[in-house]
């Protein structure tokens, strides 16, 4: 039955994609279109434009890398949680060792200043 559920999820994603696209396309079609050069300028005028690729702050990339690391670590604990009874005491001990490694990584990131915002 699980296969049917995942098929249904795929159908649902496509359905939402199409419906929402139709909704904004419909709004675009219904709306008046009296454009002029000034109207098509950026709404937030008066401030200089930025170059998207260059203006992304490096801090956010560091956060993204940390997210990847720590989220994988969080997801890594999920199978353990589901099979908790089977793994028993040994599982908890192994997870403790794993968490020590997580903490070493976390302290390293902090010491390197990855968590600081000025």
């Amino acid at each position, binding site marked *: 039955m699980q296969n049917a559920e995942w*098929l249904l999820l795929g159908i649902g994603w496509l359905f939402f994609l199409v419906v929402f696209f139709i909704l*904004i396309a419909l709004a675009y079609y219904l709306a008046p279109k009296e454009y002029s050069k000034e109207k098509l300028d950026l709404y937030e005028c008066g401030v200089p434009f930025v170059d998207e690729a260059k203006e992304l702050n490096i801090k956010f990339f560091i956060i993204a890398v940390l997210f990847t690391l720590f989220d994988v670590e969080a997801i890594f*604990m999920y199978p353990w949680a589901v099979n908790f009874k089977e793994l028993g005491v040994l599982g908890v001990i192994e997870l403790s060792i794993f968490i020590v490694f997580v903490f070493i990584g976390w302290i390293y990131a902090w010491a390197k200043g990855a968590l600081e915002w000025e």
Partner: protein
Amino acid sequence: MLIYVLTGAIKLLVVFVLLLLYALFMLWFERKALGFIQIRIGPKLVSSGLEGLLQPIADMLKTLWKEDIVPHRADKLVFWLAPVIGAMFPFAAAMAMPFGPPLKIGGSYFYLSVVHVNVGILYILAALGLTSYGVLSAGIASGGNKYSLISAQREVAQMVSYEVVMALALLNPILMAQSLDLYDIVAMQAHHLWFVFYQPVAFVVFLICMFATAAIVPFDLPEAEQELVAGFNTEYSAMKMGMFPFGQFVTILVMSSLMVIFFLGGWTGPIWNGHPWILGFIWYWIKVFFFVFLFIWSWGTFPRYRYDQLMNICWKILLPISVLNILWTGFALIIHIPMI
């Protein structure tokens, strides 16, 4: 299999309509509740007998006929795609969200969610996580608008940071129920106390993450009006702009239902042990709507955190607390294993 997919498709349509109605209701409820908090009246004139309940429908119709401006500097394809993505993934997450207790018909159960996958919580977290793509692409496609870009970066960094902590906080109830299936987790709580009594720390951590991932007021840095105009959707107009709050409202609903299912016993209540079905349904929605209201309440009550404070709370306080909490839960469960 075919009949199964057909029932699912019907459920999908019903859920879609319900979510749209819910989003419209929230547009009204948000303004009304905020008005109440700020000692104003709020929307009142449209359908005056119903306290302005039809206001969002009027707004919606008006939005459909508003001029739709795509700035000429914008990246057209991504600019069009961003609102669709931003609204689509919260709705996709809501597909796995239970809308009530399972109905027992004959010998089998009828589940009140579009799909019933055995890794429900992983799916919901993944789908909600993908919402940040909508925000990020909205900011990047805006054609070099400084404020859109800054706001998009902020929101994505905030969402992903708190997602780590949220996954860790949700691990504690999962550890106690030993299942990723939302229905199993509620069934577990029907036989024991609610998980909030076993896991108060995880409850508080998840409560904070709930506000942060939905970008609601103590953590609404991406939409800090004083600094960033209107946030990542500054350049958007007409229906495209309307899609983002739609997505946000559905995110709020999904978050509230996760909260209720994981910590507050889902459809179990003090005076309910499985029958009648309708009582469980009412319990569930009372609890969910309490949290939905809590979002708006905090919206009208709290001031905003600074961005460095926001990130410090997440990475320096909540992360170690929730990791240690998991370890503690593990040890406690090993000692009390006959209990579960």
